[in-house]
């Protein structure tokens, strides 16, 4: 009886204090997974990604899954994520050999590394979902934008196909969809992450090299990851506010 009363009072207090939507989400917030709440609120999230170079084995799983999930054209040049292989001569680190046959979609062929004298590794690339994204700043019609939860998206119904954004992105993450002649790019699987799933590329990564992270979620392992790893973003000198953090990123990576 006593416990019934307590439960009733707690429940009532919750409804009074957290009226409406918040009370529905409360159990998910207590469980440390606010992204699973049925009433997704953009202001509760700040999405990004971590990529651990040491873990990437160049399987190409992410590239294939991304194209499948997001209906990306199979033509070469249309990638929302792709994998590059770096072969770096330790004596000339400023001139690495980079290959990415079909973005890594079909895997990687063997290349020459006589006596193992070169440093070699894979670097998955994708939209960095910049907080100060150059691509959205140049759009003349408001067809691309930073969502309140930190994802750079495209409104295909407004895009003119002027290609300003394709040129503005310092990371080469945008392409023109040959079917619609409008710009397209990684959405960080917005249709998935707003429903409690991870991105398709992170879902299929065999080694867990990619992790979707929510910087506003205090229970997200990313906070521990950022404290305990030497992370870096691509092209920090561009001041884009990139939110894809790489662990063990080599200085030769462009």
């Amino acid at each position, binding site marked *: 009886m006593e416990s019934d009363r307590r439960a009733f009072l707690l429940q009532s207090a919750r409804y009074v204090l957290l009226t409406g939507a918040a009370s529905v989400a409360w159990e998910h917030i207590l469980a440390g997974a606010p992204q699973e709440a049925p009433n997704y609120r*953009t202001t509760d999230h700040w999405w990004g990604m971590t990529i651990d170079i*040491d*873990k*990437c*084995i*160049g*399987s*190409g*799983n992410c590239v294939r*899954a991304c194209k*499948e*999930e*997001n209906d990306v054209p199979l033509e070469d040049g249309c990638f929302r994520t792709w994998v590059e*292989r*770096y*072969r770096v001569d330790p004596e000339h680190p400023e001139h690495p050999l980079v290959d990415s046959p079909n973005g890594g979609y079909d*895997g*990687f*062929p*063997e*290349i*020459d*590394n006589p006596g193992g004298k*070169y440093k*070699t*590794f*894979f670097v998955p690339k994708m939209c960095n979902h910049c907080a100060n994204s150059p691509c959205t700043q140049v759009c003349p019609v*408001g*067809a*691309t*934008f*930073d*969502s*309140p939860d930190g994802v750079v*998206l*495209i*409104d*295909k*119904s*407004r895009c003119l196909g002027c290609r300003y954004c394709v040129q503005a992105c310092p990371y080469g993450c945008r392409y023109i969809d040959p079917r619609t002649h409008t710009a397209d790019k990684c*959405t960080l699987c*917005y*249709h*998935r992450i*707003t*429903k409690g*799933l*991870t991105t*398709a590329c992170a*879902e*299929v*990564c*065999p*080694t*867990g090299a990619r992790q979707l992270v929510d910087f506003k979620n205090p229970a997200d392992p990313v906070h521990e990851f950022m404290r305990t790893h030497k992370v870096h973003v691509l092209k920090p000198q561009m001041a884009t506010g990139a939110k894809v953090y790489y662990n063990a990123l080599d200085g030769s990576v462009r």
Partner: protein
Amino acid sequence: MRGRFGHAGHVVRVALVFAVGALAFLIVRHALVPSDFGKYGFYRAGALDDARARPIKYAGSKACDECHAGTYEPDDDAKPAKAKKDLDPVDLLTDNKHRQLRCEACHGPLAAHIDDLDKPVAKVANDKLCLGCHREITGRPKSQPQVVFGDHGDKDPCVSCHRPHRPRTDEEKG
């Protein structure tokens, strides 16, 4: 004889032209700019919902776990009896080099199977799939187990020794 404002007609006519122009601008702008444009920023607020509306193809391993948690293959009652023979339940969580792999990493997108459980999950194990991660190539980190196909296993299919859900062979388990 004109009055003090006798030439005001010129001003009125110019003002009318401006008024008609401004009205036309407002009408065209109203027709062209979506009503929810600018609600959150310089974009159409409905574009956020459009981005969320895409169908999901990779269901996520949590959906798989609702029926297949922990063990796989022989526990699945929907499987034909012949597929069960000689197979122990595969414990995915312990003593298993592939435990970190999520189902769809190998099986491919399974949302169609989650929506309609009668749609079978394809058997996908073949040498090409295995070698996608385990072929020895330049760039692959040393921590990843890698083989040269042919040198390792006499060109027999990978599955003749390794079971995909628990790849260590019986000898390796000791």
